[in-house]
């Protein structure tokens, strides 16, 4: 989609693949004066988790640059660093040739950056004009602000009614307001985080056209997305992040779905090689349930379940699935496609707006945010054991029994804890999670639902949790696992289904089909 190869940067037809793109060599290929934004060797950790490791991004002025990656690849984190919302542990940020150390978004805005966040930073009860004006000084003339908005919106083809209240505007319009906020502050580099995630196809096309208009007038766009097709269709250059590292940087014209998907997923699937060898290799990554337990009655069953919610991320349509004893069902999905609601419906924590749900009275649930939803941090292990299903408990609580239960869990699940009367807060993340899994299996050993059970845990704890999940399955429990790490699901699950836009898909049981279904590329209904 771009034809300026004059500087000899990337030879046509050769996508550049790197283990990690960093250091001066790569940047030599793109002369300084051409670069609007350059991030080099960015490291960022959150506690024990490495979010970014030597990540790099080189964005040429006057281009639309797509930043691609799966869940948790580090795209948003990298752009938070660029926009001054997050300080990197290492690495440099260069904007229009000048090195910067942003202390806050204000600094980034002054340097000419503007960001449209995935979750809008707007005040719903206020008007467009008020939101755009926020941050100024002195006397407020909404009239002047409105005029400026009109000017800018005409200049860039972004229709908006400055007097409208944000909460009355459709999502697409709200997004335009976010863009306008940046443009009114003379942003020359626009960063958009998953902008088309909340838009219809038509709105997406309109947005992309408007961004083109901005670029034509000299602006630069960095656009975070996981939608391959959009990236290919509208971007000039693409960069792919995987597990916090930059693995690909190429002209959009030189890559296709296959190369991008492979880079994002870390596979080497090519359409031509469907040899038996490859088939064997692929099947090894996914265990297919070969008639195991198919005769037994399902433990968990959903029929025609639908869920309406104000948040699109929690909507579900026509979900029907069953989970039998002694099997692990893996749910694969990109963040925000309905898994949050589905898991809770399966676990009996959420009642859907339609459909039937057949689940046992006690279903163990290991939620993603264990600090908020699974544990009372200041309480002891014994108390947290009693917490499970407390709503239906009656009468006297013999704490001696709870203590014994807690001790049992500690032993069986290898939880490193001083004792059953230790506060849960004092345990490490991995041990807390092992404890939660153990507790939930004690309460409902027939069914267990897990949501990102190993997120934020170290390798050993991760392996332990995965072992426990398998053990539960072998003991006859019906297990449902959701993880934003596709590899984890593939390693654990007997059967995998995909959630996309609130609907259930059943792609072929190989990594690439599943990955593509998650990204909405599947042709299957």
């Amino acid at each position, binding site marked *: 989609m771009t034809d300026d190869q004059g500087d000899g940067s990337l030879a046509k037809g050769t996508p550049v693949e790197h283990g990690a793109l960093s250091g001066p060599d790569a940047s030599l290929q793109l002369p300084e004066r051409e670069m609007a934004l350059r991030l080099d060797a960015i490291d960022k950790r959150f506690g024990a988790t490495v979010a970014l490791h030597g990540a790099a991004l080189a964005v040429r002025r006057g281009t639309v640059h797509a930043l691609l990656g799966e869940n948790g690849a580090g795209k948003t984190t990298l752009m938070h660093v660029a926009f001054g919302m997050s300080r990197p542990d290492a690495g440099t940020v260069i904007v229009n040739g000048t090195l910067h150390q942003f202390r806050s978004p204000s600094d980034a805005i002054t340097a000419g950056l503007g960001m449209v966040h995935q979750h809008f930073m707007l005040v719903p009860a206020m008007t467009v004009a008020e939101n755009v004006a926020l941050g100024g000084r002195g006397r407020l003339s909404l009239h002047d602000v409105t005029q400026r908005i009109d000017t800018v919106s005409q200049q860039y083809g972004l229709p908006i009614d400055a007097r409208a209240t944000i909460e009355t505007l459709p999502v697409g319009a709200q997004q335009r307001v976010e863009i306008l906020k940046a443009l009114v502050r003379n942003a020359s580099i626009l960063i958009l985080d998953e902008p088309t995630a909340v838009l219809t196809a038509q709105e997406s096309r309109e947005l992309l056209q408007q961004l083109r208009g901005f670029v034509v007038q000299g602006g630069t766009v960095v656009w975070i997305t996981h939608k391959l097709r959009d990236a290919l269709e509208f971007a000039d250059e693409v960069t792919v992040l995987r597990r916090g590292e930059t693995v690909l940087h190429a002209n959009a014209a030189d890559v296709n779905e296959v190369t991008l998907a492979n880079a994002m997923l870390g596979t080497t699937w090519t359409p031509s090689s469907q040899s038996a060898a490859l088939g064997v290799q692929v099947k090894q990554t996914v265990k297919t349930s070969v008639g195991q337990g198919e005769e037994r009655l399902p433990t968990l069953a959903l029929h025609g379940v639908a869920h309406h919610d104000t948040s699109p991320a929690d909507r579900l349509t026509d979900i029907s699935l069953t989970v039998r004893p002694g099997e692990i069902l893996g749910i694969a999905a990109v963040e925000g496609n309905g898994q949050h609601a589905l898991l809770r419906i399966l676990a*009996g*924590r959420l009642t859907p707006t339609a459909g039937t749900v057949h689940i046992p009275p006690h279903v163990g*649930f290991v*939620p993603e*945010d264990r*600090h*908020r*939803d*699974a*544990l*009372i*941090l*200041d*309480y002891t292990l014994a*108390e947290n054991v*009693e*917490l*499970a*299903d*407390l*709503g*239906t*408990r*009656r*009468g*006297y*609580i013999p*704490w001696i029994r709870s203590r014994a239960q807690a001790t049992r869990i500690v032993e069986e699940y290898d939880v490193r804890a001083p004792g059953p009367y230790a506060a849960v*807060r004092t345990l490490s993340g991995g041990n807390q999670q092992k404890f939660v899994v153990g507790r939930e299996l004690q309460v409902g050993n027939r069914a267990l639902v897990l949501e990102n059970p190993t997120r934020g845990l170290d390798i050993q704890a991760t392996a332990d949790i995965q072992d426990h999940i398998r053990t539960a399955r072998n003991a006859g429990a019906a297990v449902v696992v959701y993880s934003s790490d596709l590899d984890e699901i593939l390693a654990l699950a007997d059967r995998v289904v995909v959630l996309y836009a609130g609907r259930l898909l059943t792609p072929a049981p190989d990594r690439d089909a599943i990955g593509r279904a998650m990204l909405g590329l599947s042709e299957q209904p």
Partner: protein
Amino acid sequence: MTAHLTLLADILVRATPLILTGLAVAVAFRGGVLNIGADGQLLVGATAAAWVGIVLTPTVGVIALPLALLLGAVAGGLWAFVAAYLRTRFHVLEVISTIMLNFVAVYVVSYLVRGPLQEPTHIYPQTDTIPSAAQLSRLLTSTRLHWGFILAIVLAVGIWWIIRYTAAGFRLRATGANPYAAASAGRIAIRQVTTKAFIASGMLAGLAGAIEVCGVTFALYENLSPGYGYTGIAVALLADLNPLGVIVSGILFGALESGASALQRDANVPATMATVLEATLILLVMAGAYIRARRKNSSALITPSLSITG
């Protein structure tokens, strides 16, 4: 010896309503309910008890006293239920509604003691003295110490036991500690839990008022409560919301007020100093919680809206 006993009796008499309002506040706060209305609930309870004493004793005779205490508690619970209902149905902040109800209760009492319930000579703004069938008998003769104190202790121990050893009690404090985990991991109906806590809290405060009338004042009059409901907050916070601790801190505050009263009598130091000390104690508790939270570096982002201890 007698002087010491008299002093002790005075302290314990003053402590009784404080223990009960302290319990009321502790139970509510434990469940995440900000009941600032213990004062009004106390007044309503006192009114109900006085009404039983004055009006019903001829009819019910010997059971006047237990009936007075029971109706006092019920009245307090009902008064609290108004705020509870406004909270669940209309999302009215219970802090404001309970304070408003405090004022309304004051005027209800004022009306009654100057009107329908006024003593027969119609001179003083108070009820007649309640008959002895409705009175709490003395623990120590020639002091004001009455059986209400024992009742308060028993209740405190009982509530401690319930919170610690029963499922219902654990539900209460789990909901207050982390409503998200209570709803998700515990599958607790948190709305029901908070409403029940609110009512229970009101009942305790109402009982405090009934006991004051039946054991100390033997009549209803204006200014019956010099802010017991608000002091109860300090009592509860100082006791870290532990019912057994409330006994101790209630007695401590009783001693404070007894001392303040004496100081005023003997040394012209205003008794309002006690309020200042109580408020300072609350602030110190909050400052302590802040320092502790800073050290623990707890993730403030997920703390539920009421988290008294940081």
